[in-house]
């Protein structure tokens, strides 16, 4: 019996790329989808009874931090991959803010090598730097980085300030057919800021990060994308204004795409002072809710949800950003920025489905077909379940409630604002290339 062959029985198969939503079996052989349909049988193949479960393409995350090389105390490629599989992800794109940063072909080679050795149960796709050392001055040898296999270019948390340098990088990326993925932030405007520039910042005596710090760079990047013809992907949108800018750019026919994170879709700036599952505490300065871009307002959340529903926003990405305990257990202003997001993503996003704000189909589309389009089918990532596609499948129980407990998380980073939340909707199993990458203890595959 081959480990990369499997028969999934009686699942509700949801494949947004093919508008499929029906009860079906899926037969996987040799790591690829062989066929799907009712009443399939196969001999000598393990059987997964998926009655009551949803089977959909494995989730694709366009934005995560695996921290290796350089920050292995926060996360390693191995631990990050385990956490990703736990969260239903079969393909993850890791950002280049490692040490050294992924600004050379050899650094990309290194990540690919470690991923192949330690993280075979998910596909790790590195993003290369736009500039050397992420310093915003000189562009990297982008052709070599592309040849080494990077799927796009980004300086992530240190976005390129110079419009001139950015435009040169965009011209190169356009020639390579790869996206520039930008974390849009005017660093001068946001300098010294810790949370949204709103009433909570005034309340806590913290400097705020205004929405304009994001929106001014989104606007600049759209203008530069129009000039250079690059595929621009704006990552982790957080404001109403950014959604409007992306919507207009798409109306103009520009090759602009965008993603949003689970936390920006569900939490507001108030989460810094108010934890719904811990109401007995003193005025909190909850470092687990410190993230960049910062959590914004209810109006921003409404605009982001509308962006998901009307197609302005193409994908949901976690911005999984693990940190050590010590980096969060400290003064708010010195605490590290980011949320460990792989393992709570689906459950958190299901709250939007459970409240009727987005459909289940929209949710799954933004975790599968949407990001797959941005990856442009590279490395065989299709985001669909169709015959001959690589068998990347996630099995979901959308009715199952579970309690988020950081002790259950496989990521080294336990920094989540969702600890103690009860979520409805759980990843039951993750299958990558036909192999079981993760399976919940309550389920069994019969051999």
């Amino acid at each position, binding site marked *: 019996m081959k480990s990369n062959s499997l028969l999934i029985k009686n699942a509700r198969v949801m494949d947004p790329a093919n508008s499929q939503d029906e009860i079906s079996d899926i037969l996987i052989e040799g790591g690829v989808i062989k066929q799907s349909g009712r009443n399939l049988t196969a001999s000598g193949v393990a059987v997964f009874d998926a009655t009551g479960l949803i089977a959909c393409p494995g989730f694709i995350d366009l934005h995560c931090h695996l921290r290796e090389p350089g920050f292995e105390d926060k996360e390693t490629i191995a631990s990050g991959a385990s956490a990703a599989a736990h969260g239903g992800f079969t393909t993850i794109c890791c950002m280049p803010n490692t040490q050294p940063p992924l600004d050379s072909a050899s650094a990309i080679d290194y990540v690919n090598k470690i991923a192949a050795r330690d993280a075979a149960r998910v596909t790790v796709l590195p993003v290369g730097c736009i500039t050397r050392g992420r310093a915003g001055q000189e562009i990297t040898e982008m052709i070599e980085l592309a040849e080494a296999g990077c799927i796009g270019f980004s300086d992530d948390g240190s976005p390129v300030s110079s419009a001139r340098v950015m435009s040169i990088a965009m011209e190169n990326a356009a020639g390579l057919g790869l996206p520039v993925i930008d974390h849009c932030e005017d660093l001068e405007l946001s300098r010294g800021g810790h949370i949204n*520039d*709103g*009433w*909570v*910042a*005034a*309340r*806590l*005596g*913290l400097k*705020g990060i*205004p929405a304009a710090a994001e929106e001014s760079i989104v606007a600049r990047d759209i203008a530069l994308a129009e000039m250079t013809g690059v595929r621009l992907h704006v990552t982790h949108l957080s404001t109403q204004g950014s959604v409007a800018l992306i919507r207009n750019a798409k109306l103009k026919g520009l090759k602009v795409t965008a993603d949003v994170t689970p936390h920006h879709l569900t939490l507001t700036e108030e989460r810094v002072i108010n934890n719904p599952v811990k109401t007995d*505490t*003193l*005025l*909190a*300065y909850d470092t687990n809710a410190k993230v960049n871009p910062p959590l914004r307002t209810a109006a921003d959340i409404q605009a982001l949800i509308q962006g998901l529903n009307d197609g302005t926003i193409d994908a949901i990405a976690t911005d999984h950003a693990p940190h050590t305990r*010590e980096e969060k*257990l*400290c*003064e*708010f*202003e*010195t605490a590290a920025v980011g949320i460990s997001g792989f393992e709570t993503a689906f459950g958190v996003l299901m709250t939007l489905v459970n409240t009727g704000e987005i459909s289940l189909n929209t949710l799954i589309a933004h975790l599968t077909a949407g990001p797959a389009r941005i990856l442009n089918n590279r490395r065989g990532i299709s985001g669909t379940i169709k015959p001959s596609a690589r068998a990347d499948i996630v099995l979901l129980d959308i009715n199952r409630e579970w309690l988020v407990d950081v002790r259950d998380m496989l990521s080294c980073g336990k920094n989540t604002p969702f600890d103690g939340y009860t979520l409805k909707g759980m990843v039951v199993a993750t299958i990558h290339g036909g192999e079981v990458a993760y399976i919940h203890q309550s389920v069994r595959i019969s051999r």
Partner: protein
Amino acid sequence: MSLYEAKLSAAGQGTLPPLSIGSWQHKHVLDLDDFSREEIDLVFEIADGMVEILARDVKKVPTLRGKTIATMFFEPSTRTRASFELAAKYLGADTVSLDAVKSSVAKGESLIDSLRTLQALEIDTIIIRHPCSGAACIAAQHLETSIINAGDGCHAHPSQGLLDIYTMKRQLGDLSGKKMVIIGDIMHSRVARSNIWGTRTFGISVVLCPPPTLVQHGMSEMIERCGLNHVRIEHKLDAALEDADIIMPLRLQKERQPSGLIPSIREYIQQYQLNPKRLLRARPGAIVMHPGPMNEGIEISHDVAYGSNSLIEQQVTNGVAIRMALLYLISGGKNR
């Protein structure tokens, strides 16, 4: 009652009068946002007794004998630290003072670990000042020991807020209907924020008068969301000072100019300095306070700082009494 009068009446008296502290609910003093009016009144009632003690020749009482109080200051301070340490000593407590800027923190120890060490030394109350907003709150979340916030970043300075209101009350009596104007750098002022919270049950209206660049964008929304209906913002000083009863110019940090938040110190003086001419706009007999340290000649002119309206020195004396009251209540709270 002036300090001189208190001195006369206190002459020859014994120890502290017995007080009911049943309405005291605080283990920590982090800000005034969770203080009820009853609690503030209780602090003031006890502070009255402390003022009497301060007026004596021999200022020491044995109330907190056997208690140990630590001051841990992560940023430079002279008056607040001296005020707290004297308050503890006058009540008979043992004090230990840690200059955190130079100690273990410089060796890389975290805030929480440093404080846990103090807790392990069986310190009863830790008085902490820190440049980061929220540091005292974070300390209180991780420690069993009582914490008094002696100033955290731009967030809160509750003992200063209390001593300011106490000073107003001793001078003006009933504060209901009075108008207070706080002038200057509201954005970076923990004193302003604690005064805003502290005054909310006194019937005072508070006008914040900052240059437009020295207040958070979210301040108006904060005022609304937090139900601080007695507070409003007015950028023009002359308008703000109309009929004011209490005026508090804030220290203007000189580094605000190089950082670009104000165009020049000269313009700030022209637009926002409290000088005798501007003082005429306020009510006759309006009081002037300043949380210190002052930049004489910048936010306040010499004539006003040392004029007949100024209560700046009384604030300092009252500060010791308020801190004695807080230490007394915190220690009492622990024994219950």
